[in-house]
């Protein structure tokens, strides 16, 4: 039984002897490993389900030979490609077949990270201690003293020691089964066959990730006969790469993935979309005549935690719900917490063009730094609202702007929750610069708090407090 094509039509278009012969050199360990893998696929009856990932290296043409689904990966990326296949179709049996340059050098990050994920794929690692396809260069697994074209005087200590991948993979938490096998004798070949079959079976049964390192011969680049190469593997390589099982966990089958959901209810619900009855939306309120333009910019500036972003989004939502166009852009300092936090908001009757607010019509400053930084950007006729609880000694402010010191923090604290100072600020803005109908702003507040209705009275009170404070604020 075999999983090979009856005719290798991809090998030189299947012409002549190439229709039934591989591109491998005489005595190559890849050929033996191919026959082992073919036998395992055939004996397990999984030829239809198998997806084989060919690497870059001598096995790049594995898809010439294996009559299974085939994907040819970039150098070192076969495990990533294998994972992509396994997650696309969990029923597929996905096998990543890689050499030592591919797996243990350029692809180390993929090799280790995907082994650690532990998803059930099968990785077959052909370690022949040398680069084959590029012509006999140093491999990460070359032996100390081994002469290659890039270690012409032999592998020196400064070139590093041979990388023991099976041991390295075995100490990860992800894999369930790791074994190193060889091909140099009938006895070792029998073990190799068993190991490959077991590794695939663990995948079939959904038990986990398995890694088989196969010590193989490269007679051509070792400059040996196949017999000498077998002897070299047996005496030299096995000394550096001890054979045997490195990890073998007993794990119950666990891997199963339900089919992806494509129901509108699920997609819309998780996206936060709200189906609405088909009715004509209320026409937007006429654009207030007191505004200087058809596109009004706001800047809300403070530190992380002041609620500038939340307030900006609330304003934006309310404007869009009203039927205007609106945008909000955040800007943060490099700190993840406690740094500057600015938001630029635009509300336009028809279309926001420039979404940044370099010259905001209204500035809401939550701290002294923000006030000092942005007050001068407010053009004449604009509004500057600031938290007079925190900014007791404001810097000189430009003339010709309406300056509104409002104790955002104190008013919020009086309501028992200082964090609602941003809603106090929105209430003050509403009073100072009525752009949106107040019922729209309150309805939006209610909407965003629909999952926390207990907070609504507090927020409504904060809005009202800010609104009332404007009348009381003495122009500075």
């Amino acid at each position: 039984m075999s999983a090979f094509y009856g005719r290798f039509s991809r090998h030189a278009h299947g012409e002549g002897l190439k229709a039934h012969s591989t591109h491998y050199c005489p005595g190559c360990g890849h050929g033996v490993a191919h026959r082992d893998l073919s036998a395992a696929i055939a004996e397990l009856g999984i030829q239809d389900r198998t997806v084989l990932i060919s690497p870059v290296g001598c096995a790049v043409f594995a898809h010439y030979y294996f009559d299974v689904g085939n994907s040819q990966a970039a150098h070192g990326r076969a495990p990533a490609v294998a994972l992509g296949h396994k997650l696309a179709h969990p029923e597929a049996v996905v096998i990543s077949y890689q050499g030592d340059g591919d797996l243990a050098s350029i692809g180390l990050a993929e090799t280790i990270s995907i082994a650690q994920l532990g998803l059930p794929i099968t990785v077959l690692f052909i370690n022949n201690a040398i680069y084959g396809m590029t012509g006999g260069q140093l491999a990460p697994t070359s032996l100390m003293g081994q002469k290659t074209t890039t270690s012409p005087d032999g592998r020196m200590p400064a070139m590093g020691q041979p990388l023991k991948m099976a041991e390295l993979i075995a100490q990860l938490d992800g894999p369930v089964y790791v074994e190193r096998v060889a091909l140099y004798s009938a006895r070792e070949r029998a073990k190799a066959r068993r190991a490959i079959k077991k590794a695939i079976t663990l995948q079939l049964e959904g038990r986990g990730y398995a890694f088989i390192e196969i010590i193989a011969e490269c007679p051509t680049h070792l400059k040996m006969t196949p017999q000498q190469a077998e002897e070299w593997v047996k005496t030299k390589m096995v000394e550096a790469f001890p054979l045997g099982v490195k990890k073998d966990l007993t794990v119950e089958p666990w891997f199963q993935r339900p089919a992806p959901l494509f129901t509108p209810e699920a997609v819309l619900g998780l996206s936060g979309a709200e189906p609405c009855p088909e009715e004509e939306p209320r026409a937007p309120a006429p654009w207030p005549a007191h505004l200087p333009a058809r596109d009004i910019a706001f800047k809300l500036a403070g530190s992380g935690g002041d609620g500038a972003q939340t307030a900006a989004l609330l304003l934006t939502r309310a404007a869009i719900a009203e039927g205007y166009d609106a945008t909000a852009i955040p800007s943060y300092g490099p700190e993840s917490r406690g740094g500057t936090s600015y938001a630029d908001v635009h509300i336009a009757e028809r279309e926001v063009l420039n979404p940044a607010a370099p010259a905001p019509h209204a500035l809401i400053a939550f701290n002294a730094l923000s006030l000092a930084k942005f007050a001068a950007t407010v053009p004449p006729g604009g509004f500057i609202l600031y938290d007079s609880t925190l900014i007791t000694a404001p810097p000189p402010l430009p003339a010709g702007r309406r300056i509104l010191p409002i104790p955002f923090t104190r008013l919020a604290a009086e309501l028992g929750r200082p964090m609602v100072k941003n809603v106090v600020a929105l209430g003050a803005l509403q009073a100072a610069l009525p752009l949106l109908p107040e019922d729209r702003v309150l309805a939006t507040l209610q909407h965003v708090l629909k999952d926390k209705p207990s907070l609504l009275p507090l927020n409504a009170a904060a809005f009202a407090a800010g609104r009332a404070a404007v009348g009381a604020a003495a122009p500075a």
Partner: protein
Amino acid sequence: MSVPARPKPYLDPQYCKGCLRCIEACPRGCLTAGTALNPATGLVPVELHLDNCNGCTLCLQACPEPYGLRLETDRPGPDGDFVLEDPAKLFGEKCVPNHSEGDLPDDRIALPPCAPMVLKGTYAIAIGALLAGCRHVYGYPITPSTEGAELMAKILPRLNGVFVQAVSEVAAVNMMYGTGGAGLPCMTFTSSPGFSLMLEGLSYLIGAEVPGVFVNIMRGGPGLGNIAPEQADIKLACRGLGHGNTRALVLAPSTPQEMLDLTVEAFALSFRYRNPVIILGDGYLGQMTGQVRLPGSMIRPGLPAWAVWGDRAHRHNLISSIALAESDLEAHNEHLNRKYAAIAACEQRVDCHRCGDAEVLVIACNTPARMAKGAVESARAQGVKAGLFRPVTLWPFPIDALAEILPRVRRLVVVEAGPGQLEDELRLALSHAGIAPPPISHVRRCGGILPPEAEILAGLLAPAEVRT
């Protein structure tokens, strides 16, 4: 000694490379090194002496050639070719459902009308991808694109989908190669430095004709640069998708609404052409919250006939970008060129604003196009016949539409938040089309600064520098 009636080995000498690995394997000395050169191969095949053979098959397991040592019972048929057993007979009932031959088409599922949403740009893209049927997202966190991936990480498990935070962008793009090669829609969110890392993988996707959607929320460069919005990857997306003869559709949204709409479109285009599609946004678009209306339908993806899926119907398929013979690779490149030509002919998209009678034409995309629109309005208010030509596809550049407008245009002004890569695309497109353009000037800012409307207006009214 009785010889069991097990089949003995058989060797067609022309498939033996004479490696002699089988000799040591045989405990009964049935194989010896050959002495005669095989005229067909120039190699010396092993010789079999099977009188003493008990059919143990150990020699078969030592043979590296699939059609080297085989069992007598596997001798080729009279036509000289090897006949495989019918897999159905051999392997029995299949536990994997087979898809029928040919493409399994997408399902389009109607959506109820929804209230307009207020979404951040990266979220709009994520929701667009969900509606387009994407359930596989791979990525690596990078500002300012991460929120899209975060939303996917939250939503996808609840839709039985997958978000994998890969070890790097290099791994992420290759996971896309796997899932895309299996025929399913998949995507990534990244930003400029991450996009650089994905370029090798993109070349493989393009070479192997694997679909996939890449969202690059561009930031300031070169190197680590900063996280402010710069249009500095237009060159990469339009001209530099890794090694070789590569092209991909490049879509440039300018509003949160377009972030969603163009994402839905990107998946369709990616499968229509079996090619990656790039969505280039700028940092403003990624972070900006605005109004988004949902489309009237969503997609349940089918499965294309070419997919490497892992069932019998798709077993013969191969996803690969290697073609060893020069003539094969040339033919593949010619095939790709025909595809690129079809894309260039059919997929040019542009949004024209007051271009009908424009004498001064602004060319801008992404967020700078919004400022440019404001400047056009201001210029019009001052009596200047200005218009905005906003390419929605950066590759292919919408040169056909521009060619129609150009005869009336006296001056072109390219507005960019970047070092001039859009202008390069414009000039290349004009050159390839053999169009002698009117004088071209530009308004550019770099480092993450958007060209302010006032500067654009000044450039519209009196160009600082005019090059032809």
